[in-house]
């Protein structure tokens, strides 16, 4: 395009964890000009912490991990504008206000948007998702005039919304399509434990129930919802939490290869030169074995940002997240997982041993290969586990015997907490005997 190639200005679209991690590591490794664009907020904040602002645990400022002066000190330029269009030919971004910005290399980190499934009444007032900072402001604005709320979708955002509304004294109906909470990911016992916990907080949990339609009042605000089971639930607010999808509508027609998300190879490169994508908006052309093509998770976004910064400053580096891990909190119960634990395992490939505390909200499930008794993964509720240990046990094949023997040490709960080593050990000894022949 006749452009000076000595200028390597990097423009990052999106100031979430993926974009900001990329920016920080780019700055660590180089003095390249870096610009970060976001319409949503002037400074990086932790999206996952929005719930704590609503519940009064934090102020919004607390969700910003860096002081506002950090960006100028590190010579990272911040632009708060909305991008309407990408002109890949001319390497230009067009803003809503008519201005534009040229780039030498562009990093797309534009995140997700909440799904709407075309329900009747989904665009009524006080019907919303929770993703964007504006969603939080909107929820706050509706709160005082809300007595009952309905949350649709039994995933991580759904349960967060239920907890949030409950913390402000609202009556909450929680509609979950599946027969048990998040049982597409959680095994049956864990899922049931969470069902009970949700109910013990006084939430109306409606399992195997979908949203059918939403009806409004004279002012166009939601007044009630109909469920697939024929029930009518009066409510003044509806939260839609049936998943998120990549936020890529504005990129249509730009020449980028778009599927569910922005298609990228293992080096996080799109089909167009000098354009990369990281985080929620990216779709892996060849997903890693056992992993999803789109992983809208904090940690994977962060790792993609770290990886891309390598490629852009020194060594071309492929995206290689280590063994899968994730965590969440279901009301008062910590959830952590490392490696693979299937909700319905194929008995030839995966066997499991499960332990649950007789009355506390604690459980552990270890999965292993029934052929060679190698450890495959773990799910814990109410127990914190050391990432470092499980990363090690998953990177190199480790026998279950070895893992179970030192499991107590891998607990990460506060000092003086019990480790249940003996109970879990005896569960494993019992289980192991049925696999003795294979060994």
């Amino acid at each position, binding site marked *: 395009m006749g452009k000076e190639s000595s200028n390597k200005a990097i423009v990052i679209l999106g100031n979430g964890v993926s974009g900001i991690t990329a920016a920080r590591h780019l700055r660590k490794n180089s003095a390249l000009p870096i610009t970060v664009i976001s319409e949503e907020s002037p400074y990086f904040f*932790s999206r996952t912490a929005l719930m704590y602002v609503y519940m009064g*645990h934090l*102020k919004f400022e607390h969700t910003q991990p860096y002081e506002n002066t950090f960006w100028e000190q590190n010579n990272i330029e911040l632009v708060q504008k909305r991008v309407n269009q990408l002109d890949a030919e001319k390497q230009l971004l067009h803003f809503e206000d008519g201005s534009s910005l040229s780039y030498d290399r562009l990093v797309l980190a534009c995140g997700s948007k909440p799904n709407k499934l075309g329900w009747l009444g989904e665009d009524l007032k006080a019907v919303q998702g929770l993703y964007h900072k504006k969603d939080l402001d909107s929820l706050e604005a509706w709160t005082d005039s809300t007595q009952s709320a309905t949350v649709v979708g039994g995933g991580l955002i759904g349960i967060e919304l239920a907890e949030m509304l409950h913390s402000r004294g609202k009556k909450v109906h929680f509609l979950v399509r599946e027969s048990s909470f998040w049982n597409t990911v959680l095994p049956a016992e864990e899922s049931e434990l969470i069902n009970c916990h949700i109910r013990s907080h006084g939430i109306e949990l409606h399992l195997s129930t979908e949203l059918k339609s939403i009806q409004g009042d004279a002012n166009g605000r939601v007044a009630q919802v109909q469920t697939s089971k024929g029930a009518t639930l009066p409510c003044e607010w509806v939260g839609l939490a049936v998943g998120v999808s990549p936020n890529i509508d504005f990129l249509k027609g730009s020449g980028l290869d778009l599927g569910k998300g922005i298609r990228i190879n293992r080096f996080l490169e799109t089909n167009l030169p000098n354009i990369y994508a990281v985080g929620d908006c990216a779709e892996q052309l060849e997903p890693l074995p056992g992993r999803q093509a789109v992983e809208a998770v904090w*940690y994977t976004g962060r*790792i993609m940002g770290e990886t891309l910064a*390598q490629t852009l400053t020194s060594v071309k580096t492929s995206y290689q*997240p*280590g063994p899968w891990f994730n965590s969440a909190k279901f009301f008062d119960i910590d959830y952590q997982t490392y490696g693979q634990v299937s909700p319905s395992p194929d008995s030839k490939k995966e066997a499991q041993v499960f332990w649950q505390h007789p009355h506390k909200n604690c459980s552990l499930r270890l999965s292993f290969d029934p052929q060679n008794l190698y450890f495959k993964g773990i799910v814990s509720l109410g127990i914190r586990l050391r990432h470092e240990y499980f990363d090690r046990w998953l990177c190199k094949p480790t026998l279950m015997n070895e893992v179970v023997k030192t499991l107590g040490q891998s607990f990460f709960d506060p000092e003086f907490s019990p480790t249940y080593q003996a109970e879990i050990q005896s569960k494993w000894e019992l289980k192991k005997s049925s696999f003795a022949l294979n060994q």
Partner: protein
Amino acid sequence: MMNLLKKQSSIGVGLLGLTLLLSALFIAYDNKVLWLSVSFVLMTLGGLIYFQTIYGHQLSGIKNNGVWFSALTTRGITGWLLGMGLTAFYIAIYWFPEVLGFNTQGESTGLVAFFDPLSLSLNGSPATQWFMYGTLYTFAIILFGVKFIWKYWGNRYQLFRTLSVVFFQLCFAFLIPEILAKLNPETPYFAKDLKNMWPLNYYFLDEWHLTNMLTGGNLGFFFLVFGLAMIFIGSPILTYFYGKRWYCSWVCGCGGLAETAGDPFRQLSSKKLSVWKLERWMIHAVLVFVTVTTIAAIWSFITQNPELSLISRTQFISGVVVFIIALMLILFFWSKNGLEKDAKYTLISLGSILVLSLCVQGFSGQNNILFLNSYSFQKWYGFGVGAAFSGVLGVGFYPFLGSRVWCRFGCPMAAILGLQQRLFSRFRITTNGGQCISCGNCSAYCEMGIDVRAYAQRGENIVRSSCVGCGICSAVCPRGVLKLENDGLENRINSTPYPLGNAMEVDA
């Protein structure tokens, strides 16, 4: 609705007890035993019912809902009223005890005299303003200790830590000293709180206090030896194994009040980098101040009481010089990389000045050392740090600046323990690999103003001299990222280019 009614009436009952107590400022009750008891029973009852209504029906978990919506905990109107009330109380205790009824010449009246029955039964003499203060202080730690345990129910670290802090306040700070005073009425006064070590107890080595201990028979001698042993042996060993938390959040009375009654205000501490800088300057300045004052005090004691002294002036000066040089060398060579540049310069210049002036003056036989009149210095330290800082600012300003203002900016004990914790201790807060989501709960609820998240999101362990080991960052973390623990000195900080989760091969 029932709950709201119960909550409000419990507050009413508690306030009634408090009003009854304060009414003793103006009304001389004939039956002090009865009315003092009624007042404490009402305050206890009101408190317990209130805690029951807010925590009793809840499942164990984090109970920070609405913290940033409440005027009391966010410097709103009730916060200001409480802060001003507490500050006024402290000003009265330190500088105008006569307002509270204290009378140096004869019998006390008013609020102070209201505590006479309790004081007489415990230590055999009528109450002073300090006895009244000690009683209220201990009562607050016990009552709000119950609240704290209730709030963090299910977290055994918090349970044991709070029981410990309550125990040390009730027994070591309150009951034992009073009872010892009753059993030894003829001995001159010296501090009988075994856990209140120098330099937190800044007058421990002052001339009058040394004299009183040395003329105080076996008991006085025991307290002197125990105090010295704690300073030079007990405290370094305990800090090596457990970090400064063994003292600051398990034993100390200031810490005890901050952790219990001060808990609702912990989020008000500033996390700004600029405040961290201020903190480092202030706390170390106080440490130098108290050290210099103490050297001068011991010097004047030895000069004026050669017959009581166990060592001569020359021995003392030589000892101090050798100690300072040895300490500097150890600090310097032990942790060349652990110290910031500014810390090194400060250390060298300050140490040299001290040693030089000690030598010049000590061996020239003057009565004042370090060019100081030790009396006026002690007086200023007592006024500025002992009263104004630790009392008025330290507790009176809970609702404005958070619960650990004194511990963070002013406590010389915290400075010494912190220095050791940073450089030579097995304690750290371990970060759990790559699990941090940067939410900010840990930083927000750190009473010491440490930006815990800044470390956690980089996968780096937290080794900070100011950390008192309260464990709340770990408790409020929604992803199980933080754990307080003691382990080997190797890889204590665990600084890696990336948090765990990557299989990326990168040259750091």
